């Protein structure tokens, strides 16, 4: 389930895709934005008017594929990193995926990396074709990857290592997964607002705190400015892995207002603000 895992399923994704016919015509924006939140910068970013202004700020944006030419201007603008541009006509057997990438180091054109799916698992090798990191990228560089055509609907990220070589981490995951040397765990932040590392989370799990709410109350993970938007799914994934419980069955914490931090003074009337 998207709500618990943070990973959109294929059927959900297919709904926002253009027709087979349109896909053949060239690049298009895949707006994989599935949560109703008050957000709309993508609308203004599109110079071609392909994303119509929502009736309600919480509405989920959709692209008009007759207007969209896959320019990719919207990619870096989306704070949710939810927009990708897909070109299924990149080569005979490759599709091009343009994706937002906010990690360091940035890849170099020509690198061969591992394309990962929405859940972060490596699924193929991919060639880095372009890296755009200009002022207008506003610190959200866009990386273009050439991937096998049949995976155009799946590859949404990449990593430099597919974890097939002997992994130093102590987790029970037998599937190929991201290489996580143990020595880096204590600096691997799960909750960035409160500075809680993966190491710390594992300590609490070992003490018997095995639900999201329990981890939250003991560590403060999820109580910071973002209110769990960053760490919620990371913690659920870790808990699912260590407790063996299916992630869909794990209780999540309550969503509460305000949706984003709001200055107290803004709630006062003009008179009172003086």
């Amino acid at each position, binding site marked *: 389930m998207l709500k618990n895992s943070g990973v959109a399923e294929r059927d959900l994704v297919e709904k926002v895709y253009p027709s087979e016919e349109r896909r053949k015509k060239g690049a298009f924006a895949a707006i994989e934005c599935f949560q109703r939140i008050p957000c709309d910068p993508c609308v203004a970013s599109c110079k071609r008017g392909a994303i119509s202004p929502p009736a309600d700020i919480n509405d989920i944006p959709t692209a008009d594929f007759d207007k969209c030419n896959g320019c990719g201007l919207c990619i870096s603008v989306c704070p949710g990193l939810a927009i990708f541009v897909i070109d299924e006509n990149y080569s005979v057997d490759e599709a091009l995926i343009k994706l937002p990438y906010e990690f360091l180091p940035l890849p170099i054109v020509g690198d061969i990396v591992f394309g990962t799916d929405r859940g972060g698992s490596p699924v193929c090798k991919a060639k880095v074709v372009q890296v755009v990191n200009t002022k207008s990228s506003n610190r959200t560089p866009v990386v273009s990857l050439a991937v096998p055509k049949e995976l155009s609907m799946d590859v949404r990220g990449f990593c430099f290592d597919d974890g097939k070589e002997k992994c130093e981490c102590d987790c029970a995951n037998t599937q190929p997964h991201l290489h996580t040397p143990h020595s880096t765990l204590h600096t691997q932040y799960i909750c960035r607002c409160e500075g809680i590392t993966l190491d710390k989370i594992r300590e609490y799990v070992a003490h018997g705190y095995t639900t999201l709410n329990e981890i939250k*109350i003991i560590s403060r993970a999820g*109580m910071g400015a973002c209110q769990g938007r960053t760490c919620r799914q990371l913690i659920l994934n870790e808990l699912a892995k260590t407790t063996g419980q299916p992630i869909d069955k794990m209780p999540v914490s309550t969503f509460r207002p305000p949706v984003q931090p709001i200055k107290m003074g803004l709630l006062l009337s003009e008179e009172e603000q003086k």
Partner: protein
Amino acid sequence: MNKTSSIVIIGGGISGAAVAYELAKRGQKDIILIEREYLSGGATGRCGAGVRMQWGTKMNCLLAKYAIEKFETLNEELDYEYDVEFKQGGYLMCASTQKEYDQFVKNVALQNSLGINSRIITPAEAKEIVPYINTDYMIGGTFHQKDGHLNPFHTTLAYARAAERLGVEIMKYTAVTGIDVQNGKIKGVMTDKGYIATETVLNAAGGYSQQIAEMVGVTLPLYSQRHQIMVTEPVIPIQGPMFMGFVHNIYIQQTPHGSFIMGRGDAYEPKDLRVTSGWQFMEDMARNCAKLLPALRDLNIVRQWAGLYNMSPDKQPIYGVVEGVEGMYVAAGYSGHGFMFGPVTGVVMAEMMLGLPTTVDVSALGPDRFASGKLFVEPSVV
């Protein structure tokens, strides 16, 4: 999964956890504590966790003094591996009307006679303690340095972990669905994870204690009511004490983490079990805060939430034996100040359940006081 137990405690808030620990510490074996969600998931984990000795009646002063002196060394007593975060920055109580001020003067005299070193302060002195207070709305106040606040999650977990080490079994995510009473005696407790045979039950279910009482056919004169609260982003430490004003309807503290937590009451809240959040609260709260502590208006609010006050007719807890059902005890109805009584609830209920004399005399807080009309009236409640 059926079990047998000597004592079943219903509710894993501060009350249930403290009683479990104090019983086990006195040698009681085979205790089971049942909590429907996670420990502190009820009012305890949602509360302001302020603790004060500045009360208006002798009993409340003594109960709070006893509890706070225990909070001071709780980490050590419970060998807690983390920290209950007790910040003894004091309570600054603001008097805004002459009537309130006169009451405060009486309270301080009483408190001083009981060894509580509270004092009357002028608005100018208040400003020395919290420099950014707007004293326009204040005619005077009281201050007591040993009051303060804790982290309610850690406080509950500290008790629960110590109880577990002493053999208490804690069943989290387990709901009590019924209580088996035969010939006026407790025989067992039904849960969604099976039956537990027992002859003694403590109802420490907070906002849900009426429901638990109904399971043995008793109606307690309690009702629950939502109370809302909110928290800001963290900033450097600028406020020592909990600031509290009854007339202006506000309590506000800065936690050791740096965030400000503030709440207020709403007389128009319906009496039910809702714990959703309402927009009106955030506006009203911001307004109160901006008026009394104008410097805080630039802080960002990051979250609001709500919990249940469990109200009794005289706004005092009920500690005691439930008449007519042998083996049934209740510790509920704290009316918004049950967190600070937690340690003393633990001690007096454990003593009562083991047939020992109680350290603090709480006979005036028995469930029978309502029928006999002997209400206990405390002038200083929020």
